[in-house]
């Protein structure tokens, strides 16, 4: 964990790298999240000040988008596609299996902090669904057995 001074320093560095972009806020939020795994509370006022917008505005933007997290996720993030083409090949069944196996619902993290489960709406893998993206790695034709195997392999 970084302390808040280090956090501020890293955010300042990210700001310096992105501030000249036209419409820099999303690239900045992405970079901050890539660095910290979420957008830390103390980052928002610094970002808002640098972009000359209100803190409420920065917060409003951040919360509008599904991708940005206010709190850290579990050690692993399992995102399962819930959209139609994956439904047509059993995505609902696989999702129910995941919830049961992990003992959590969408947007929750297992008690040991290991796995966060999230829905995603289409990964462009619609001809080889059910699709998943787990810690940034893509998976196609994910059935119950394959999911059990993947989850079992998460450290």
């Amino acid at each position, binding site marked *: 964990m970084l302390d808040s001074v280090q956090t501020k320093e890293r955010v300042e560095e990210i700001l310096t790298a992105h501030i000249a972009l036209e419409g820099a806020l999303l690239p900045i939020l992405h970079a901050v999240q890539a660095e910290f795994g979420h957008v830390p509370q103390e980052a928002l006022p610094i970002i808002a000040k640098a972009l000359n917008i209100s803190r409420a505005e920065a917060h409003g933007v951040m919360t509008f988008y599904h991708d940005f997290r206010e709190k850290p996720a579990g050690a692993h993030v399992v995102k399962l596609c819930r959209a139609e083409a994956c439904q047509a090949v059993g995505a609902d069944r696989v999702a129910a299996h995941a919830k049961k196996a992990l003992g959590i619902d969408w947007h929750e993290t297992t008690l040991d902090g290991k796995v966060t489960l999230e829905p*995603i709406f289409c990964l*462009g893998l619609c001809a080889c669904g059910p699709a998943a993206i787990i810690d940034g790695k893509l998976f196609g034709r994910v059935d119950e057995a394959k999911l059990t195997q993947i989850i079992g392999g998460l450290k």
Partner: protein
Amino acid sequence: MKIFLPLDSAAIALGADEIALALQAQAKAKGIDLDLVRNGSRGMVWLEPMAEVQTPAGRMAFGPMDLADVPALFGDLAAHPKALGLTDDLPWMAAQTRLTFARVGVIDPLSLADYRAQGGLTGLARALEMDAPALVAEVTASGLRGRGGAGFPTGIKWKTVSEAQADRKYIVCNADEGDSATFADRMLMEGDPFTLIEGMIIAGLATGATKGFVYIRSEYPIAIHVMQQATLIARAVGLLGPMVMGKGPAFDLEIRVGAGAYVCGEETSLLNSLEGKRGVVRAKPPLPALEGFMGKPTVVNNVISLASIPVIFEKGAEHYKNFGLGRSRGTIPLQIAGNARFGGLYEVAFGLSLGEIVDKIAGGTASGRPVKAVQVGGPLGAYFPRALFDTPFGYEEFAGKDGLIGHAGLTIFDDSADMLAQARFAMEFCAIESCGKCTPCRIGAVRGVETVDRIARGDASAIPLLTDLCNTMKSGSLCALGGFTPYPVMSALTHFPDDFSRTKEAAE
């Protein structure tokens, strides 16, 4: 020895990276000098990961590859258990008209030399000899209409931006591709990124725009990576920069990443997002063509619209226009998804009937059960029953059947599908993804879920309520998210009434 193995997301999701490692290890063990090219996908997703070996007769295809199939690729190819024959002779490939996707799967996506060798930059070279009105006229003459869904004539949009007076203009490529069942934008960006860049440069020449953005959804990590690399390469050789190809005006490009909001595919919401704001929809007018990014004249076009520009300039507007049906000119990359026996990307002239696509090209369902419904055009598109399979694939033809072709994605469902559940999902999705600006969409979708649930509990009196609600959403929503959600809902209700007439007993 030269082997092609896709870096396409679908191939990777099915194990291509592991196959690539095994190929390299095997080649090393055998002392073979292996040239492994990570290409785009040919679009036959059911055969991925599909390897191709360069032979004197042409490229031979093998798939779907398992790790166990790797060693035999270094032996007698004809005897390989996954041998499919010459790629170009496979029926799926041979019957297509590949204009926009001509190079996808053929070339190394990041090799400009490959790109040029296969006709790349020919269109741009011709465009550099033309003035802006002539460029716009060529696009108009091609009959190209927006492939993002709305089908607006691309030439007319460009003309508006071209004639607008401003100190800065922009080209924004909409690569948000949020519709389920669609992956053409992704495949094009992963498999032939320079085509998109070339199309955007020509758009810049035609309109006087000097800066472009590609807004790619965050769900596409590989497409983002390939586009970023391609942009760097294009800049390094002077294709992008202060003087296009050492000849033209300035044009440069930035790759931007979305953040998981479906509505940001809507062009005005996308512009807000690019500007660093909440992705709420803007009221139109003003049109983005006049007041778009940062209030400046802006072309917003889909990936496939822009990626079709180079071939139009390479082969001429006439050539492109001669394909198609009625007012739907040129080719369309069909994306066959869901429960399809043969799923993937199939580029063909407009005009095939839905039945030909579903029964012949897709080969029916993967499960082997009867096809019950096909959703055409993504989450805002209608569910088509077999009774409407004679509908020809074209903008007006689908609109005439209370549907839309959208971005040309088709999701096939077998007879285990519950159309009431699909209608409920359409409302739920709209509720999750609504930008919140207008009430019919924000509140209507929540009421929609509740109303479908009442029907599911056997309350038939809720059916007229659902119809009314759909009418309100259709006429009162600010954009097509709320405005078109009634398409899947009403088509499910109209064509599959049995799924909505549950007796109380059965439901409880």
